[in-house]
């Protein structure tokens, strides 16, 4: 359905053709808002984790959120039960997995970055296996619904999903940006960060918690939209440098922009493509380009 700018403007002000009003207010607008919220959450979450783990390959899903949420989603969609609880279930699955990963990453004296990453990878593999098993066992139509969720899609997202998740994401967006100075200090390494008065344990829990709330919020709205959280912080760093006081807010803005554009592209064709496919198809080449452009510092920030 094509609307002229005039019709769109009228509908936006709740005037003119009531059909157009429905299209703008109940179909288009919530979807754009959803894309912006999901994109900004993923962008900021990725920037926070890349900074905290000092690893350029970190994404919001590295610590196992995707595995936990994915498992719940596949169970719910694949088995066709309790489907209205999907967003909440995915959210809980993701958060529970991260809590478990943090628990596994404890050392005698703190939380180790290497253990966080390895714990996340190990749990992802385990949950991934169970997830594949469930997919194989589920009936055809339901397996497809689960797959589309795993790829990530904004199709049919409306206000009711947003009002539940948006407040926690918006609060986390603000909280995340306030952690910028903390991340600047952490980027100098653990020893110097301690010397400058930060508590490694506290900042790792704080940053991890905010990044988790953001990613879980995004996942519960749109499923596992990949690459936004990985690529956007890299692009932002190329543009604004290493200071997290700039990197964090611009990663959120960049994420919102990229996902809105990707969702627009996803709807252009005759049949709609899940937005996760668009971000992956756009994102992979960009990522490879970044990787080979900076051969000297692969994984560096």
């Amino acid at each position, binding site marked *: 359905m094509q609307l002229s700018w005039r019709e769109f403007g009228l509908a936006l002000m709740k005037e003119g053709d009531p059909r157009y009003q429905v299209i703008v207010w109940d179909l288009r607008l919530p979807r754009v808002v959803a894309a912006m919220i999901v994109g900004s959450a993923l962008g900021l979450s990725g920037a926070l984790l890349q900074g905290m783990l*000092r690893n350029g390959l970190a994404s919001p899903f590295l610590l196992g959120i995707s595995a936990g949420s994915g498992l719940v989603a596949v169970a719910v969609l694949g088995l066709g039960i309790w489907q209205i609880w999907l967003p909440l279930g995915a959210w809980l699955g993701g958060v529970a997995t991260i809590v478990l990963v943090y628990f596994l990453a404890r050392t*005698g*004296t703190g939380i180790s970055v290497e253990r966080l990453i390895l714990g996340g990878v190990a749990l992802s593999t385990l949950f991934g296996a169970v997830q594949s098993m469930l997919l194989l066992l589920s009936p055809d139509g339901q397996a497809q619904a689960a797959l589309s969720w795993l790829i990530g899609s904004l199709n049919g997202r409306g206000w009711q999903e947003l009002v539940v998740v948006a407040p926690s994401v918006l609060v986390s967006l603000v909280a995340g940006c*306030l952690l910028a*100075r*903390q991340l*600047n*200090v952490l*980027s*100098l*390494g*653990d*020893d*110097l960060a*301690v*010397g*400058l*008065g*930060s*508590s490694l344990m506290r900042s790792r829990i704080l940053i991890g918690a905010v990044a988790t709330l953001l990613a879980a919020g995004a996942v519960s709205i749109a499923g596992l939209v990949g690459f936004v959280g990985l690529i956007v912080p890299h692009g932002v760093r190329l543009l604004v*440098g*290493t*200071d997290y*006081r700039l990197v964090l807010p611009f990663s959120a803005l960049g994420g919102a922009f990229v996902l809105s554009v990707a969702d627009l592209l996803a709807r252009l064709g005759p049949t709609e493509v899940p937005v996760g496919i668009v971000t992956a198809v756009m994102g992979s080449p960009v990522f490879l380009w970044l990787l080979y452009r900076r051969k000297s*510092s692969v994984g*560096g*920030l």
Partner: protein
Amino acid sequence: MPLQAQQLSGGYADKRIVEAVNLTREKGEWLSLVGANGSGKSTLLRLLSRILPPQAGTVLLDSKSIHALAPTEVAKQLAIIPQQQVLPPGLTVHQLVSLGRTPHQPWWQWDLDSQSKERIALAMEWTDITQYRDRSVAELSGGEKQRAFLALALAQDPQVLLLDEPTTFLDVHFQLELLELLKRLNQQQNLSIITVLHDINLASRYSDRIACLRQGQLWTVGAVDTVLTPETMREVFAIEAAILTTPVGLQICPLSAY
């Protein structure tokens, strides 16, 4: 304001490397920790700087345990320069030095206040890196890089500066340059320095006191001329050495290894 180690023990996991060390730093002095590889001198420095939590005993700053004090309160008085430095590419000298103000800035303060700006300018002036202000730290030479990290520590405005083998990656010119600079700061700004030094001759040349570690224990600590004896060399470094009087004070001439 003394920094004091009381029955300090610690190490990694179940392995205790430093055992029951008692040590007091006098105000404004330069204390060097020396010892053979694996003697626990770096571990002791990491314990003193609270990078490692102690397994027993405590470190007192102003007669309060540094583990009970708020981390930022300790950081206002105690600065550290680790041996291995992590550098985000693109970080400029000024950005690096500015981070030294972190403990003095409340968490909600987004930018530097005027007092911080003055201190940063001063720290960069002392270390003679003002002309590199907007250069990327990663592109500097080894000696300049160490001076940039020293400026970061000085921006913290500490009473005590802890350094872990600051001269390791420097050739002899930059070793002397850095240690001379530290000596000037030590004397003119009354900055106490505790440093691990590999090179016993550099330690004897610049320190007020030397602490010798052997197998995690404090073998002896005292003024340079009381510590630097053939017997200490034998017990601490397992070498036969002659002690020479030179224009720069007592120096070691190693004769043979056991």
